[in-house]
């Protein structure tokens, strides 16, 4: 069986709206002639860490702003913590903490002041937790926000969010400015939040981070959900890359079911195979005498590339877990 490529929606069953922290169905949001969200579906179960993926301009930030009641939905259903994000904004905001993708702070206030402002407005500032996080993120709270770097501004927002007791964390590319050391601290904090039973919606471009942290992911493109499910479920639907060296020149690979993109020369073949058909392909190859075989399990990157590859190929290549360009043009989805 070969999987038809996107755009096609595949909502993995078993995660229904019961007990969902976030439930979005058929969400549409237009800005003038631009259709930023075009029937988006997203379900985040209570207590899970949910990855929210998509290329620049896919509509992730717009979806988050609808969830926060900052934008009004044009069509579709949106339920946040059992309420309506537009009408119940204030009550719902007591229960969530948000880190924007583009953190803009009041230049005259110090980082410590800003963290306190957010904590007090939310009404659940834990001073001990705040100080602990300041230490872990190595953030100097006495500096004026004007002097902070992008990463430090992000830390201010992160400390403010993580120091709260909010049951839902909505994080829009929270680590795009953090160094690898701080990225580790962030990942620890998210694991702790999960252990405490909090729900996390994590929009990210750092696929390694999503793979490490997330229980389930939702991939969107052009304002529409194209994949959602657990990583295992999504992997099942993808292809493994195989690089094999054989004694005799391998032949007939193209005719096998589920095998794609075959590049074969004298004693070497490289191809992708649907994970379901890996067994058959390897059996076929043994007939030629396998000298060496490396197989690459499908990564999130490949999932990603499968959906966007046609557009991205030639322009951008994925390197060490990042989409090139995703970092460079920091303000995405806007």
């Amino acid at each position: 069986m070969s999987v038809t490529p996107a755009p096609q929606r595949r909502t993995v069953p078993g995660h229904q709206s019961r007990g969902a922290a976030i439930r979005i169905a058929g969400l549409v949001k237009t800005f003038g002639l631009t259709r930023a969200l075009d029937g988006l579906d997203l379900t985040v179960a209570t207590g899970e860490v949910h990855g929210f993926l998509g290329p620049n301009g896919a509509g992730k930030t717009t979806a988050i702003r609808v969830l926060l009641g900052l934008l009004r939905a044009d069509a579709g259903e949106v339920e946040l913590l059992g309420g309506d994000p537009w009408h119940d904004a204030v009550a719902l905001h007591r229960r969530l903490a948000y880190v924007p993708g583009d953190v803009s702070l009041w230049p005259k206030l110090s980082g410590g002041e800003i963290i306190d402002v957010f904590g007090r407005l939310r009404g659940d500032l834990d001073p001990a937790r705040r100080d602990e996080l300041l230490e872990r993120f190595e953030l100097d709270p006495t500096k004026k926000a004007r002097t902070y770097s992008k990463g430090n501004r992000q830390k201010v927002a992160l400390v403010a969010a993580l120091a709260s007791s909010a049951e839902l964390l909505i994080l829009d590319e929270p680590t795009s400015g953090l160094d690898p050391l701080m990225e580790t601290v962030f990942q620890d904090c998210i694991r702790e939040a999960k252990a405490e039973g909090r729900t996390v919606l994590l929009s990210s471009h750092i696929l390694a981070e999503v793979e490490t942290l997330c229980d389930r992911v939702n991939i969107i493109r052009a304002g529409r959900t194209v994949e959602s499910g657990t990583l295992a479920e999504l992997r099942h639907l993808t292809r493994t890359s195989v690089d094999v060296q054989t004694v005799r020149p391998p032949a007939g690979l193209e005719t096998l079911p589920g095998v794609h993109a075959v590049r074969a020369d004298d004693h070497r073949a490289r191809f992708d195979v649907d994970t379901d058909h890996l067994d058959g392909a390897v059996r076929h190859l043994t007939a030629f005498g396998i000298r060496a075989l490396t197989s690459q399990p499908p990564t999130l990157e490949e999932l990603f590339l499968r959906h966007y590859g046609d557009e991205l190929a030639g322009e951008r290549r994925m390197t060490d877990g990042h989409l090139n360009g995703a970092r460079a043009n920091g303000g995405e989805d806007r």
Partner: protein
Amino acid sequence: MTRPTATELTGTATLTRLVLRRDRVRILVWTVAVPLLVILTAASVKGLYPTQADLDEAAATSADNAAAIAFNGPVQALDTLGGQVAFQTGSLGLVVVALMSMFMVGRQTRAEEEAGRTELIRSMAVGRHAPTAAALLVVAGMNVVVGALVTLGLVVLDLPVVGSVVFGVSFCALGIVFAAITTVAAQITENTRVVHGGTGAVLGLAFVLRAVGDIGDGTVSWFSPIGWVQKNRPFAGERWWPLLVAAACTIALIAVADALADRRDIGAGLVAPRPGPRSAAPGLGRPLGLAFRLQRGSLIGWSTGVFLTGVAYGWVADDVEEFIGDNEAIRDVIAQYGEVSLTDSYLARSLLTMALIATGYAIQSAVRLRGEEAGLRAEPLLATPVSRHQWAASHLAVALAGSVIVLAAGGLGTGLAYGIVGHDLGQVPRLLGAALVYTPALWLLVGLATVLFGLVPRGVVAAWAALAFCLVIGVLGEVLDVPAWVGDLSPFQHTPLLPADDLAIAPLALLAVIAVALTAIGMLGFRRRDLGGAAAP
């Protein structure tokens, strides 16, 4: 001091084109609106005094009228049409051209740097001083166009050519001096608002110094850039050499800015920011506390400025009566006003001027809502349990209460100075009350800004246009002879000019009701719309 070398200016031409492209609408509006204001007023003056007898009478009423001199300028050939045009249009026109330079330079230098765009520009093959040089070139060009259009307009109106040229050059020269002053201010502080505040303070001081000089023997006017260009005596035996003072001052200021720029880092001012507190003060935990904290500096700045303006006006007020002397024409004017003393009409006009300045604060404070929204700082706040109402109300409360404070500062300054000079401290409550009469008018403009914010957030800048309208009507209304219904659109037309007029409650109450209604409409509109910012296309 290092002299700018060729490489320090590399890229100026390209950046100049960028500035022209980015601000083409703004540039067009300023360079057309300022000359238009002057030319329309001049045309009006011409219609007002058709015969030499009219001019002679006007000259007689103005010559010894300290109030008129304080607001308009020195007495120079007021019995000629050109002299009257310079007298009637000079003060406001010159202030506006200075403001044009200030806003344009501030926007293109420090605001760009604050936004981080200068950093990107400077990472390219661009000289250290090129961005500033490009801004100055464009603004100098705008001033040349303004000067040329003013000259052209006056020549078309049949005014003497030489006088028209000198008058136009005066506008150009003052604008360029203020462009240079703004450039220096932009090196000193890292905050654009403070750049504008500082330059605005210099402009206010310049206006007051020349008022004091013009009422006196003219010596003090030499300390004011506005004084310099008025010393060119357009239409009154023109002389060119005072322009050298303006030119020398401009060159010196640019040299200072250049030296300062070499001593600071990009993004920074001259003073390193001090560390702030580790934790927030208790008041900051509420929207109102935060809004007040964010606007505190601006409120203090405006209040101080208006207070000092009041002190200057109040100080001179006592001399106004002496000026009348035996002037019969003035007696006639007083007779028209009934029992009102000349001092009181002078004070009333002073308070009106201060109220118009205070409106600048009111609008700046109200449009802060849009600034916070567009700057993406509202977004995380509104993601906390703060409702849109609470957030908008917090900034509006500061705008509304702040308006009262700034007005009170003006009344207090005038009252204290006048009271101390005249040994009558009873003037303090009297003038304080007279200043506060403008509260509903200011609130109405806050309401207008709120409506724009709630319904057409991209159009909040129109609130400033409303202030410009009120300013023109308030200062030039009588000269311009606009249709009554147009003038009536300004809330200041419905505010009794205390202490010259009697207090009338009904129009004030009506203004207040309209202000409340506008604010309510704006708030409702904001609750229903999408939060914008850099986000929505």
